[in-house]
């Protein structure tokens, strides 16, 4: 494996890692909040308002 291939492999892995982290972030935001659907500051409330 020559130097160019190693560098390209690292770049591709970094890109995959970045996209993976981004997707993980999105998945995290997919999970429902503890509070209601609106930004009323009631995250700790057990009731989650659903449509």
């Amino acid at each position: 494996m020559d130097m160019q291939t190693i560098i390209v492999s690292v770049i591709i892995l970094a890109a995959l890692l970045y996209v993976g982290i981004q997707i993980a972030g999105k998945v995290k935001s997919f999970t429902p909040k503890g509070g209601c659907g609106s930004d009323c500051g009631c995250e700790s409330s057990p009731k989650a308002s659903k449509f």
Partner: protein
Amino acid sequence: MKTEVGSQNTEARNSNLGVAELVGEYNKTSNKRLTIALAGNPNAGKTTLFNVLTGLKQKVANYPGVTVERKEGVWRLDDKTARLIDLPGLYSLDVTSLDEQIASDVLTGKLTGIGKPDAVVAVVDSTNLERNLYLVTQLLEFKIPVVIALTMGDAAEKQSLVIDSRKLSKLLQIPVIAINAKQRQGISELSEAVSRAATEYNVPRLPWTNDGDSIETDEDIHLSLSEDVAANKRIFARYNFISEVYQESVNQEQTFERNVSDKVDSVLTHKFFGLVILVAILLLVFQTIFSWANLPMDLLDQGFGMLGDFVKTSLPEGILNDLLVDGIITGVGGVIIFLPQILLLFLFLSILEDTGYMARAAFLLDKLMSRVGLHGKAFLPLLSSFACAIPGIMATRTIENPKDRLATILIAPFMSCSARLPVYTLMIGAFFTGQTVFGFLSIGALLMLAMYALGIFVAIIVAFILKRTILKSPPPPFVMELPPYRLPNLRTVLQNMFTRAGLFLKRAGTVILAISIILWALTYFPRDAGSDAGNQAQTEIAVNAGQGAEAGDENVKESVHLQNSYAGQLGHLIEPVIEPLGFDWKIGVALVASFAAREVVVSTLSIIYNVGKDENEESETLISAIRDAKKDDGSPVWSPLTALTLMVFFVLAMQCISTVAVVRRETNSWTWTLFMIGYMTGLAYLAAFLTYQGGRLLGF
């Protein structure tokens, strides 16, 4: 005696106001500690007055069971102390939001720990008297003494507004005290008036109620509001009453500026001419964007081309050279060249917003939206969605009714966001550039306007259907305030423009860069895939293209390699599904990749066409590559109809993972999120199918 609000002698002028005239047979014991509620529209000066009346004797808590802040303090009246409760800022008491519900509960004594108030101080902004009086008319229905504290007198004076507070008091049948809280003017008169009103009160006779038959409980309110017709009648009666009161008690000198503003408004908000002007302005904006952006876009394109050539010749041949030139520079550069258009779009949008025209456009479209059942407050989230659907969807939090809010969320992604701009521009640039109608109107600008209009049109139709089926609810009334016209602030305009440009470049340097690298890898590997299949395909392509041995072995080899790459395999897998739309497998790969971000379709096509360099064509730019692209049988991949079909698909498709994430978060529901992805993708496919097949039937 006439009281000119805004004059410096407020205290003197209030001294003879008719508090005494208004007291009557309604008596209460004066020994108990009074409870006074402070109500008013947001930004009417309520907090300033509350601070002046209570000083440091305040405490802040939450209303029972909810997190709406409750501020209360002790107000020292003439001979007694009162508990002063600051109600949330309200425009009305229609009980459509939590704030309004709490205010209503306080006024009816429903909230635990807070008895029914003995009096209400209604803080009324003199410069927005009509709007503020709507809340007052509702407060009067609660059979609680109301005293008006008239604020913002100095601002009213600047607008040449002269309010006869004595006449206002007589017409409303309640005390009206002009105050200037910061200078403590009118405060002692207010204390006196409240003290008297709380102990001696006669119920005002309201024209829309039967002999003072006013609302006592929130059940009554719900009952009356549940009947749309009765509720609307009551609303109109209140506004009629306010209008009469306003005309009798307010005198506004018609200034030159106001005359001009009114005349301009009568045209810009006209139901026919207003729409014509709106369309003309948008056309002008798009036409200007196209013509002004051409030169900088060409320069950027050439710049990236030169950079690619420089890197290609500077670095030794090999995989790294290929990645940098064909993956990164081509992919990211293909998107960045649209920066001038993004800058110009936001320059014009900021100017339109800053001059006050956007509010007029909102007023015009609000009429249309209310007809389909959408809340007037939906306009601003939808307007924000033209920049990006994410802040637009988050802005729907201002809509109180969950069904109205959900309907707005579900249609917000139809608004053509800035990420779609590169897609539209690429297609228009490749197939519709330089063509005009009537000799001056570019087809590109018309098509761009048509794409924006298509998004709005479909959004309205979808909202119409949703609001009459699964999200049925009556649209609440909405009052819109038109800001004055003014010259745009250069700093604000430039700040907005460069913020959007920064976000665009950040996206290009992060998400689009990463996806370009991955896509390049998918088109580059596997390098030694199936030599037999490759050779066979190579022969087929060369024969079909009629190019034989002279075709350029290297290019044909690359084309075959692309077909056998991971991206090629994926593209061929989905090709049968997208073939009825006139799309080949390369467009299919771009469609799949663009789910990450819509602009990625441009970088994907850049990478695919650059890597493939279809047959022996040496395409210098993506536009020429698209024009020259050929299918395996030698026929062109793209036509103006294919370009139009792709644009229609992108107007309607839910091609944005970030929007999906924010919809999931805001609705707290997977069902609605999946419903939105499903119906938008289905609609996009159907519309693209009808466009392509319809166009073919018509001979295009």
